């Protein structure tokens, strides 16, 4: 029988913590609310991380997330769909849209794709303001129906983490699958991988579609949870913050992304009263992390361990 390693133990500890948390925090519904928000943003960060594996720096993740929530709102309000059905629709529409967009752009190189997706996100955001009659303009959409059967905040919390767990499991499986191997191979040595007949393009398509599907589902969930949508949630700043979570947590690791997102959102809640000093603090944190700790939070234990090993080695 295999022994449980450091990874398995910490994984089960984290899952257990999230399962028991509502019992501990029964009197603090606000904490649950923050954790639900953390779950929503973590999904987006995971999507970005998945795309980074295939050398795509996406700036349109937040747009697809918004597309999901607007789809949910329109399907339930204007078409009268069942909210559970609309939640699936919220995932499907961004998927189709991203597949269409990828058709022309999937073979672009990293820097170009970054600006390309950025411009798409800007165009989507502008459209929300301009097409006022249908999408609500700057006021957004209010009175979105909740999901039936989910009533208390604890139940929302469990639903959020159920979705998060499912998505994490899919991404984990994908990384271990053939596609994950191809992506890893291309990252290690692109020329060699290409000379062996491996192309990154099809993997990119799979990753793009999956990441945007997840973003859409979580967008629908977010719309149902908050009951109101505002285009100001979808500004480019929000997109940039996702990258801040990613780099602070540590890229290439599901746990790191979760940790970075949770840490940053809690910092924001704790230091909220500082008001106008916040952007300077965020900026300083980001610059420090990028220049000094490029591996992010998740690399810190390893760093300390390797430091001790180096001290021991000569004896």
């Amino acid at each position, binding site marked *: 029988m295999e022994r449980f390693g450091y990874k398995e133990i910490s994984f089960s500890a984290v899952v257990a913590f999230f399962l028991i948390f509502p019992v501990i925090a029964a009197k603090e519904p606000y904490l649950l609310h923050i954790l639900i928000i953390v779950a929503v943003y973590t999904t987006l960060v995971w999507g970005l991380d998945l795309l*980074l594996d295939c050398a795509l*720096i996406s700036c349109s993740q937040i747009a697809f997330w918004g597309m999901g929530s607007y789809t949910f709102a329109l399907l339930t309000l204007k078409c009268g769909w069942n909210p559970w059905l609309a939640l699936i629709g919220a995932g499907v529409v961004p998927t189709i849209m991203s597949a269409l*967009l990828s*058709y*022309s*752009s999937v*073979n*672009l*190189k*990293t*820097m*170009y794709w*970054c*600006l*390309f997706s*950025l*411009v*798409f996100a*800007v*165009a989507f955001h*502008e*459209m929300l*303001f*301009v097409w006022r009659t249908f999408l609500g303009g700057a006021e957004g959409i209010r009175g979105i129906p909740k999901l039936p059967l989910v009533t208390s905040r604890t139940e929302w919390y469990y639903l959020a983490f159920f979705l998060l767990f499912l998505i994490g499991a899919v991404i984990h499986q994908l990384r271990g699958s053939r596609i994950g191997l191809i992506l890893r191979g291309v990252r290690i040595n692109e020329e060699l991988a290409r000379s062996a007949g491996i192309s*990154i*393009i099809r993997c990119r398509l799979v990753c793009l579609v999956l990441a945007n599907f997840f973003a859409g589902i979580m967008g629908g969930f977010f719309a149902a949870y908050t009951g109101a949508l505002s285009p100001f949630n979808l500004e*480019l700043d929000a997109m*940039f913050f996702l*990258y*801040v979570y990613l*780099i602070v947590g540590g*890229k290439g690791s599901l746990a790191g992304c979760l940790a970075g997102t949770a840490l940053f959102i809690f910092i924001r809640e704790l230091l909220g009263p500082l008001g*106008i*000093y*916040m*952007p*300077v*603090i*965020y*900026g*300083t*944190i*980001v*610059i420090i992390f*990028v*220049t000094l700790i*490029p591996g992010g939070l998740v690399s810190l234990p390893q760093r300390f361990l390797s430091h001790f090993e180096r001290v021991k080695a000569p004896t």
Partner: protein
Amino acid sequence: MMGILMDGLFNSITLILLSVGMVLVIGMLRIVNFAHGALYMVGSYVVWLVVGQRLIPLDNVYLGYSIGFILAVACVAGMGAVIERLLRPLKGGFLESFILTLGLILFLEGAMLVGFGIDEKTVPSLFAKTVTAIGFSLPQQRLFVLVVGIAIGGGLWVFLTKARIGIAMRAVAQELEGAALQGINIRYVGMLGMAIGCGLAAAAGALIAPVYTVNPYIGTGPVTKCFIVMVLGGIGSLPGAVLASFLVGFVEAISATFLGSGTAKLIVYFLLLVVMLIRPMGLYGGQEWVHR
């Protein structure tokens, strides 16, 4: 009709100043400087400090403005050189440089917010009069922006085609290793390119400051347009950037006159989406941006 022409020219010139600076940085360092808009904002702030706050007490407005302009360009060019130094240890990693420049945006905007407050600042206009000639009228201030903008653009063109170091910069933009093998000091050229690019952003900010108001977030709008221009024209291509600036500037001016500004934006974005779907590498973009 002349009004549309002048509006279009005005839009285009500011866009050209910004996007050419950005393209220079892409050519020199192979990274996108997302903090370009923040540097534009800093340029505006320097002019506001010198002229609006009378940091340098001068009675002559023109002299004060000129000093403010030169100071803005010099400060921000220096900042650009420092940023290049920060970017160097990242070894051209696109993700890291992307996030570093995002951090810089947050930092600079936050610093201006903490330092000078959130309220809108106005820089006094240099010229109050309006020129009326051959059937159109134009505020002198805008005319001034046009003239100086064209002068800067022309100067840059001469620099890039005639000066030795300018030619070296173009060589680096074309082929980094090849340029290094010819004995060009690529680090120096990179730092100079970053300084010039950032200086151009500051020049645009300093020129625009008297026309609009100044606040920590003025950089976002122009820099977003600048990204659109670059995607339209082809990233890293100077002629593409200039052509797309004119295209975006004029489309916006024409549709703003006839259709209202909301629709104008939508038309620009629609144009963009069409180009993105048909020719994702942009009008002037080469095949080097596509995996084959």
